């Protein structure tokens, strides 16, 4: 039978792993799989071979939307001049305790 590259196309999935109870799921990598179940099973085999995780999320990569580096200025610069959002901005006497 002639190879038909279209008929064997699997979508790309992004894999997120929760390392321990109480932690967030963190991006671990990506893989191809025909469906969500296969993606989770493959993620188990690839990303949790040494007890790295106790929970897996997979999401098809084409559902992830990302900000663009060219937008960095408009997105993140405004935070630069708002140091008053950090506790160290406020000068208080050393005697003041429990604050």
């Amino acid at each position, binding site marked *: 039978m002639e*190879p*038909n*590259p*279209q*008929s*064997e*196309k*699997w*979508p*790309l999935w992004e894999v997120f792993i929760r390392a321990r109870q109480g932690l967030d799921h963190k991006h671990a*990598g*990506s*893989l*191809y799989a*025909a*469906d969500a179940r*296969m993606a989770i099973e493959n993620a188990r*085999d*690839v*990303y949790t*071979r*040494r007890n790295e995780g106790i929970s897996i999320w997979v999401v098809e990569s*084409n559902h992830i939307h*990302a900000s*663009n*580096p060219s937008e960095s200025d408009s997105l993140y610069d405004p935070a630069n001049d708002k140091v008053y959002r950090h506790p160290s901005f406020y000068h208080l006497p050393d005697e003041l305790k429990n604050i």
Partner: protein
Amino acid sequence: MHSSEQELFNHKIDQEVRIEPKDWMPEDYRRMLIRQMSQHAHSEIVGMLPEGNWITRAPSLRRKATLIAKVQDEAGHGLYLYSATETLGITRDETIEQLHAGKAKYSSIFNYPTLSWADIGAIGWLVDGAAIMNQVPLCRASYGPYARAMIRICKEESFHQRQGFEILLTLSRGSQAQKEMCQDAINRWWWPSLMMFGPNDDASPNSQRSMQWKIKRFTNDELRQKFVDVCVDQVKILGMGLPDKDLKWNAETGHYDFGEINWEEFYEVLKGNGPCNHERLEARKKAHAEGRWVREAAAAHSMKKNNLNTREIYGTQSAK
């Protein structure tokens, strides 16, 4: 705009800020990474073949379990690297196609045969040892996805080298025949392992560029020297020797001098004339071809389950 993007890129490289997939990067940088990372990925996958040869014949259940785990790791390492390569704008299919068409290279070491069980020990100790020497500095490579893949790989790979050394150590304490097997494997794998670091610095035109871009951190010869120094001490624990009559301590340099590498052999293997080049590539192509029906069946099953018609699915995928 272009020059300022180039400046921003240079600035990031200078300041050790990692380059990420969506950042602007020079085309040559992208090309160099695609070439190096895909070669690296292919090496992991092809590297499974010489070892797979011994899984069914491993001498004990313990050895079999560890060898399977090691080969499975290598499949994972191939995946990490293919995924990282894809972030540079080349598809997985394209990289695999380049391998199967003989256009992309993989590490020349995997074109040597694994003749005895001791070879599995020698591969772990020397081949993985050389790979680790190369890979540890790549954990600081300037391209983020590559560096992250390398961190994961290095973490997993240290067991590979230890299990290899343990195999050789066991043989070195065995019968006379086992000792000879151990020495024979070291003899055959030593020089090809030294070749893994690539051509001498003066014959490696890409190295300088790669170091300027902070993809590589050390030259081929620096890493090779480090490897030789380490192995000379380690082989003593095995009570074995390294097959190099020119090997001797140089008090002036603080390193071991070693003999001339047979570069003619290296380039011949690279050109495709090594003992197993043909066999390795055929095995890869066969596995890919024979797995086709599985890929198709899984895709068909998924499609049916999602109750989508084929036009919809393929329409969106071919649109990119």
